[in-house]
């Protein structure tokens, strides 16, 4: 039995057999490419070659430093293989003539060449085929990185173990209905996959550094998403203990069910507005069932991913309307798509590729300002969906006032367009921003003249304030929502907004963390928005806390120098 400590990314306990996803274990399927798409397919292949070339250059530099010049020569051979007509001509020829996808064409050429090498008697030359396959694998990885692995083929329930899961993998986890939980080497509590796990309610532990190399498919595994622990090959006793714990959690969950529909009030009578974060692929029925105070964050990115063209007004409208009608006239805050560079290229729009630092790159409103048609289409769909007069619009990744003024101009364009089309716009949705850059937080008072509300997106705000990439395992331990700098900045936002009589909500990890949530409430946030699966748990926590205690403690936290002190003080006040 081995116990590994990681980061608890999504609550719950899973007990089952491991299923390892190896990055190099890729299933390549033949796909027919229609005639008009052949050119794009060839380009995709050439792009993968370019990317591989860059990867090789990077590798060569590394080898030069670590192993020396002699070894770096091997990379020169790989460079030549990459330029080999077998790859540059034959593969492209296959794509064009047979109308097949690049991965399949490449694997055909590799297989054939590999078979030719098998015939060679001389061992030295025979071994050279590995160089070819090595290069071939690198190209394929660059081609399929965002494509299907094998999750949709699962026959029995498993716990997925991976080095890293990509957004497309998580999509297949949802569709397979066979994944009890997952754990991976990379990631932390706020990485995409963790948020995903929380939203579908499967336990997950991430940031385990090398677990994918320590487990084999079929090994017994326990994922403890409460403590952030993974147990490899547990003993019978441990399994028994976890079964009981799972049972207890289940009972607790059924107790939480009884909290549905009753108001969220602290034990000293303070009413809290508790909303949910949803995704366009979430189940509307679950949303209805929850009887929440509305949707504080409606993420619309998934409408844009895994497709070739952006969704049109009609498609978007149908999605927004279904959500707006599911919440019994409560507020729905729709965030315009917070997509970044790589997803744009998927959409067939010329975008930025290989940004050095995508978190500081072309994402959120920055991207929509570059492609105002996408913004106009989304705003129009939202405007047309506001028949219940409960929709608000939230703009992500805002850092300057010009950006919000640009959005408002597009809003007027949309209004004119609707008027010309004879659409009677009865209710203009309120406009707000997601405060997630330090720039927006520090100057929020000037934004407030232009907008109706703000919502603090804590995940990115923490990341930008502390200059910590939460995906980077070397520094992710520095990602700290309790850092006094974060708390002071949040306080600045709340004070400024309240001075102008505007509403402040908070979404992101902090809003559902039992301690951080109290700080937000204590500092005066007007509403909290949490993942659906966390909703009742958070509600329970609020109902059993004292608002008076929390709010009298909160301001004193701002003067503290260390996050450890902050945590201690909050834990004390929660007793």
């Amino acid at each position, binding site marked *: 039995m081995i116990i590994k400590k990681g980061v608890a990314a999504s609550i719950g306990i899973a007990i089952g057999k491991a299923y390892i996803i190896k990055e190099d274990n890729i299933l390549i399927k033949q796909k027919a490419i229609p005639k008009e798409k052949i050119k794009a397919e060839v380009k995709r292949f050439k792009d993968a070659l370019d990317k591989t070339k860059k990867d090789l250059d990077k590798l060569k530099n590394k080898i030069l430093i670590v192993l020396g010049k002699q070894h770096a020569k091997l990379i020169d051979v790989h460079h*030549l293989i990459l330029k*080999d*007509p077998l790859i540059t001509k034959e593969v492209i020829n296959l794509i064009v003539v047979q109308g097949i996808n690049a991965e399949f064409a490449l694997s055909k050429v590799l297989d054939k*060449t590999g078979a*030719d090498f098998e015939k060679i008697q001389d061992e030295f030359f025979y071994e*050279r085929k590995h160089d070819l396959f090595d290069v071939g694998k690198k190209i394929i990885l660059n081609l399929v990185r965002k494509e299907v692995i094998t999750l949709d083929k699962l026959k029995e329930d498993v716990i997925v173990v991976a080095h890293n899961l990509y957004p497309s993998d998580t999509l297949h986890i949802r569709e397979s209905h066979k994944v009890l939980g997952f754990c991976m080497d990379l990631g932390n509590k706020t990485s995409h996959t963790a948020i995903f796990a929380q939203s579908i309610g499967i336990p997950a532990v991430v940031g385990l550094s090398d677990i994918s190399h320590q487990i084999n498919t079929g090994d017994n595994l326990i994922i403890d998403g409460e403590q952030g622990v993974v147990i490899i090959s547990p003993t019978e006793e441990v399994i028994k203990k976890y079964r009981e714990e799972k049972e207890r959690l289940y009972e607790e969950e059924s107790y939480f069910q009884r909290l549905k529909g009753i108001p969220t009030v602290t034990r000293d009578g303070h009413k809290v507005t508790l909303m949910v974060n949803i995704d366009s692929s979430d189940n509307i029925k679950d949303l209805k069932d929850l009887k929440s105070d509305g949707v504080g964050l409606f993420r619309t990115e998934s409408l844009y991913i895994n497709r070739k063209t952006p969704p049109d007004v009609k498609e978007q409208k149908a999605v927004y309307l279904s959500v707006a009608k599911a919440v019994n006239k409560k507020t729905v805050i729709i965030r315009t798509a917070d997509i970044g560079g790589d997803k744009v290229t998927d959409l067939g729009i010329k975008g930025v590729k290989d940004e050095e630092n995508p978190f500081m790159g072309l994402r959120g409103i920055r991207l929509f300002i570059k492609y105002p048609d996408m913004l106009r289409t989304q705003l129009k769909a939202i405007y047309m969906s506001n028949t219940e007069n409960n929709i608000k619009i939230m703009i992500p990744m805002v850092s300057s006032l010009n950006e919000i003024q640009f959005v408002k101009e597009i809003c007027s364009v949309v209004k004119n367009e609707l008027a010309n089309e004879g659409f009677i716009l009865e209710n203009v949705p309120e406009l707000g921003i997601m405060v997630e850059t330090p720039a927006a937080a520090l100057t929020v008072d000037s934004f407030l003249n232009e907008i109706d509300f703000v919502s603090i997106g804590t995940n990115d705000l923490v990341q930008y304030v502390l200059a910590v990439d939460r995906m980077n395992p070397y520094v992710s331990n520095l990602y700290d929502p309790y850092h006094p700098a974060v708390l002071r900045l949040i306080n600045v936002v709340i004070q400024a907004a309240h001075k102008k009589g505007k509403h402040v909500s908070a979404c992101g990890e902090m809003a559902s963390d039992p301690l951080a949530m109290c700080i937000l409430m204590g500092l005066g946030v007007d509403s909290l928005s949490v993942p659906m699966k966390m909703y009742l748990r958070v509600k329970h926590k609020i109902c059993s806390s004292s608002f008076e205690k929390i709010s009298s403690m909160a301001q004193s936290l701002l003067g503290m120098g260390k996050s450890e002190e902050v945590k201690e003080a909050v834990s004390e006040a929660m007793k």
Partner: protein
Amino acid sequence: MIKRNIKVRNSLGIHARPAGMIANTASGFECDIKIIKDSLEINAKSIMGIMMLAAGQGSEIALITNGKDEKEASEAINSLFETGFDEE
């Protein structure tokens, strides 16, 4: 079209580095360049093709160039074999 017979003289034969040198040199010419050994014919611009020949020391190959700069190409590749691929 120019055809010339060449004997592989360097001690290691056409292993990865010489194969790379041939492919690199051949790629600099416009004409078609083929190398034949026994019954196997390959494109000399392809490093994998050349390695597939498994041409060890003493083996005999035929170099065929065909096209606009066939003469220069034939000379350039032959001289690689002549100088033993700068092997030390």
